[in-house]
């Protein structure tokens, strides 16, 4: 083969591999991208039941009901609309009422959601509010959102009550 042919072979194989990669990416994007909505957005955009989505908001106070066999039902709210979430499994360490939460799963209807994973949003510098306020007053503590960790799944619930 001449130098030119070799270069052609090289370039075409490179294009072939990149083409395959691009195809895979596009294909996977169609299938595995999950959109994130709040309860109000869900209603606004009229998302079709059966769609796989992530929803996020606050766990409504007093809405958590634990059933048998590690099932749990709670409501996620953005103070405007409410979505009922049912989940079977272990809740993350920082899941609690009134705190932020993200759930991924399948939409049953616009207000009913079946989650297969639940993540609690949290900060690396988590602190009881009073302590944080007290420290802030002294000018010692600054809340530094940049260090915040992304929500990650954690299959374990809050510690045993003493």
């Amino acid at each position, binding site marked *: *083969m001449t130098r030119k042919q070799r270069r052609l072979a090289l370039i075409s194989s490179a294009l072939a591999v990149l083409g395959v*990669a691009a195809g895979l990416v596009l294909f996977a994007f169609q299938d*595995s*991208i999950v959109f994130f909505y709040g309860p109000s957005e869900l209603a606004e955009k009229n998302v079709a039941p059966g769609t796989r989505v992530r929803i996020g908001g606050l766990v409504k106070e007093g809405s958590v009901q634990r059933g048998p066999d590690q099932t749990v039902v709670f409501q996620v709210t953005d103070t405007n609309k409410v979505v009922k979430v049912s989940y079977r499994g*272990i809740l993350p360490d920082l899941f609690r009422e009134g705190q932020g939460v993200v759930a*991924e799963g399948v939409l049953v209807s616009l207000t009913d959601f079946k989650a297969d994973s639940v993540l609690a949003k949290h900060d690396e510098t988590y602190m009881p509010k009073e302590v944080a306020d007290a420290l802030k007053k002294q000018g010692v503590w600054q809340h530094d*959102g940049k260090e915040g960790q992304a929500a990650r799944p954690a299959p374990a619930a809050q510690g*045993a009550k003493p």
Partner: protein
Amino acid sequence: MIIETGHYALVLAFALSLVLSTIPLWGVVTRDPVLMGVARPAAFAMTGFAALSYLALTWAYVTSDFSVFNVLQNSHSTKPFMYRISGVWANHEGSMLLWVLILAVFAALIAWRGRHMPQRLLSGVLAVQGSVAAAFFLFILATSNPFSRVVPAPFEGEGLNPLLQDPGLAIHPPLLYLGYVGFSVAFSFAVGALIEGRIDAVWARFVRPWTLTAWIFLTLGISMGSYWAYYELGWGGWWFWDPVENASLMPWLAGTALLHSTIVMEKRDALKVWTILLSILTFSLSLMGTFLVRSGVLTSVHAFATDPTRGVFILMILIFFIGGSLALFAWRAQTLRQGGLFAPISREGGLVLNNLFLSAICATVFVGTLYPLALEAVTGWIDPTNPSKISVGPPFFNATFLPLAVPLLLAVPFGQALAWKRGDLLAVTQRLVFAGAAAVVITILTFAYTYGGPVAAPLGVGLGAWLILGSINDIVTRSWRSGATLSTVLARAAGLPRSAWGSAIAHAGLGVSCIGIAATVWGVERITALKPGEKTELAAYTVMLDGVFPRQGPDYRETVARLRIFSDGQEIGVIEPGRRVFAVRTMPTTEAGLMTVGLGQIYASVADIEPDGRVGLRIYWKPLVLLIWLGSVVMALGGALSLLDRRARVGAPVRARAPVPAPAE
């Protein structure tokens, strides 16, 4: 006094990095050996002051000097000694100081090992390394100063994130940084050579050991991080395709490609343009990883927008170095001479294929990691009230990573067996027949043995076996000649260059990891709630909850569930997963309980303790799981062996002060 000395040392290191990035470069341009001679002492001095600064901060941690804001925020007087040392880098400011210290140490190592390098190249390389260091020193001083003081100093610190108080995490960041930052050397070599305008096989030999060093550390760092996530986070998984993980995987993929392309360049003086580009890209990905992790964009693009100083600063550094080096590359690349010829079917061809696939994989990971950020930024820019938020999770990466990785892995033994320049695929196939047949037999046997189980696992095991057998085959065919006695063959095998052994071992390590990953498909998971005395079945084992009791650690207390493990009615061990609450931060953490059985592990984590006294448990049986990390350690060992090769030693390979006659001119 010590604190402020350290602070001033940091400032001086910055000043010296400015000297290092200018004077030697002036020397390169004017060909003045005295100016170029500044490079080495300046690199040493910069590193010395950076180290002094780092030691001062460590001292502040060890003595719990809460007048230092950084110590106040991240330490506590009850913290065990070891975590005071590691606490230095377990926070943003300290970790950036470690980052730049490692950068400086690499500069000093180049200066130390580079006595035999051509002076112009050495000066250029050190100047580039100095300029990267200067940017990061300035970043630390301007936005993330670890030496900020507090008046009056409180008497107690705010502690350390309990998740981070763990031996795995204590050594994980330094290893990872040694890898990330190690690729700065390849970058500096590439840019230095572009400035000097001379890139050839000699360059490749000088740069290869550094790339290999960085690669070894990055391999270990990623694997350590993965093991840490596995046992500390209590989710049972070992890789989550989390953006932070991807940020370390991308430089690894590019670095692996670089490692292979430098071989081609050293041996055959080919692929020069590509290798230079890859050097730049690899370090750019490292920088980008630092940016992603440090700027807060991962939490949300908006978190970044609300407090942008650090993020914007790193972004500027990113744009300056990536943009600058790529512009230099575009300007200089045409002047690079074409290298040696080779046929598509040859060792070189194989390595090109390797590079193609690794780059393609890296590109897909890149797209999957950055697409959600880009989409959120763009749609948020069009309509600030309603940005599209999406998540790209494991399904995406599995669907793109595997189809590209599998052909690459299948091709590895062929590449190892091909000859340089012009290979004979038929002959190679004949030589690999035995290994291939054995791998197929192993696949079938595994399939039969686990009949009814998932199909993917035996295939993965077969792939791993193929890689291991291919590596063995490589060593055997190199040492075996028909008619030779066993002792001759062994002698010849022992006489093979260490780099040959190194690459064989590293590829076998890849196979080992591959088997471990495939075996995860056989894993068994039980989510259950048990009362004390109750049992549950887990694969071939029986797990019984013995009871729940409290326990006190040095600075935390723990609720522990004691689980007894039985196999065939025999008790084989006890594991004690728990939930810890640290005194300083009230955040509870999950402590997984692990028991190693052979190469597999029984893994348990405690969830809720339900009102009726039942304990919510998540129990896994993870067969062969240790192979995942063992394989990466084997890979790193292979790399280390290759590094010990005579030829990889930096500088003049033979007789230091070259008695080789100077070219007669």
